[in-house]
């Protein structure tokens, strides 16, 4: 049969952001799937070279607009590391809590869009958005903004958690735990969903390492590498959680890893809320940032909702000389062609959904 070339995107209902896929299809089988990216390329790496250090967090947040807090934090942490500044004890706990809340919010958005990609008619999508809003409300309480927080300062945060945050967070998380169970029931008790996910887009352990994928995609292929556990930062080593990994390497494994991660994050936040010390969490208003000379080159890894982000910064006084961001979506997307080869046309979208791509993150 002749090979048909179809062009998916950049305007297409399930590309979630602007990505163009050129798919060569033989009958119903995908022969080659070439992603064309760069529609959201804003040259952030160049842009931050021209800005003062603390002017950049807003740009960082726009990279991954689904989980802005994590980029905010990673960037500020890189600057802190370059300066050799210690983060205040309480600020570390608060940051951990906010990052985990952000992870839940991001995974909820992923769940909704992924369910849509496999043909769920918006039900899970709407539920997830509604529930995500509760998390956003907590983040809003903590930072003052719903979406782009710019919440981090050198050595701490812009503001401490408001009084009563504990109880409200606990209440929301208890509710969320129940809801995640409902989502799992809704989807996993549907044999069609299982059929769409299981055995689709299989990537074994060696292939995953070879392709360099990160985060839940890597853990779904049986590599239990989680920066939070293997290279802990902040207070993750004092908290009680297990990195989640599945060995199947298919879409269902990636789905399951994220669902379990949400539960782990809930556990983690609850744990952190109970162990959190009092004190001061406020950061410094630093006008002049002078990195220490021995720390001119900084490498910093963070486990973001989408995977491991590595910030490599060459620091100059006042401005970064070079900031290189290893964004998780970029490398996960690079693996798409390999994963999707040989699958059915309809599976392209299931696989895309299971990779959890944010194009702002991939294009930078």
């Amino acid at each position, binding site marked *: 049969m002749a090979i048909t070339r179809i062009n998916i995107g950049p305007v297409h209902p399930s590309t979630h952001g602007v990505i163009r896929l050129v798919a060569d299809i033989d009958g119903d089988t995908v022969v080659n799937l070439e992603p064309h*990216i760069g529609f959201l390329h804003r040259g952030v*790496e160049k842009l931050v070279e021209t800005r003062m250090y603390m002017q950049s967090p807003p740009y960082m947040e726009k990279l991954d607009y689904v989980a802005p807090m994590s980029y905010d934090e990673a960037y500020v942490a890189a600057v802190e590391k370059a300066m050799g500044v210690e983060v205040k004890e309480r600020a570390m706990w608060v940051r951990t809590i906010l990052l985990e809340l952000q992870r839940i919010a991001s995974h909820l958005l992923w769940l909704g869009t992924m369910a849509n990609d496999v043909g769920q008619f918006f039900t899970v999508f709407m539920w997830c958005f509604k529930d995500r809003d509760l998390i956003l409300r907590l983040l809003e309480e903590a930072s003052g903004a719903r979406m782009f927080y710019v919440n981090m300062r050198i050595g701490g945060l812009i503001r401490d958690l408001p009084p009563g945050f504990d109880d409200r967070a606990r209440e929301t998380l208890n509710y969320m735990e129940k809801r995640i169970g409902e989502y799992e029931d809704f989807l996993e008790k549907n044999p069609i969903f299982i059929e769409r996910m299981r055995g689709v887009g299989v990537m074994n352990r060696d292939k995953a390492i070879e*392709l360099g994928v990160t985060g839940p995609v890597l853990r779904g292929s049986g590599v239990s590498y989680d920066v939070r556990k293997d290279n802990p930062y902040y207070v993750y080593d004092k908290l009680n959680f297990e990195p989640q990994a599945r060995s199947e390497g298919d879409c269902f494994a990636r789905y399951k890893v994220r669902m379990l991660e949400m539960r782990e994050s809930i556990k983690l936040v609850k744990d952190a809320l109970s162990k959190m010390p009092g004190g001061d969490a406020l950061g410094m208003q630093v006008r002049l940032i002078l990195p220490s000379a021995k720390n001119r080159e900084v490498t910093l890894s963070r486990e973001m909702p989408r995977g491991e982000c590595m910030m490599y910064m060459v620091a100059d006084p006042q401005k970064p000389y070079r900031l290189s961001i290893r964004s998780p979506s970029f490398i996960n997307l690079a693996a798409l062609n390999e994963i999707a080869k040989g699958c059915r046309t309809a599976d392209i979208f299931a696989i895309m959904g299971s990779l959890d791509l944010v194009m702002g993150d991939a294009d930078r």
Partner: protein
Amino acid sequence: MKTERNELVQVAKSLKTQGYSYLVKITAVDYEKYLDVLYFLRNMPAGKDEVLEVQIDPADAWVPTLMGEFEAADWYERELFEMFGIEVKGRSMERLLLEKWNGTGAPLRKNFTWNAPYETEGS
């Protein structure tokens, strides 16, 4: 770990046999006098990182490809070519990855100036 670009493939190969089979990132820094190309490798289960550093002359900017060792190098090398104008020898580079513009030059080089009309061409 500093290395020469002629030995890069050899070094990467030997590191891979030692377990550094996960390529985290390939990036570069333009220090104007020379270009620093960095390869972040990781020993996956242990999570130990190794950085390969290759210094090259900006006027004669090329590195050998690591595609043979790490499939993950594909997009990073394309990005390297696009952003730093560093030619990657030993592989094909059929189209630009991130940018759709009419100008010339490598944006992340320090001497870069914008020289394209402010409109983009559909790819």
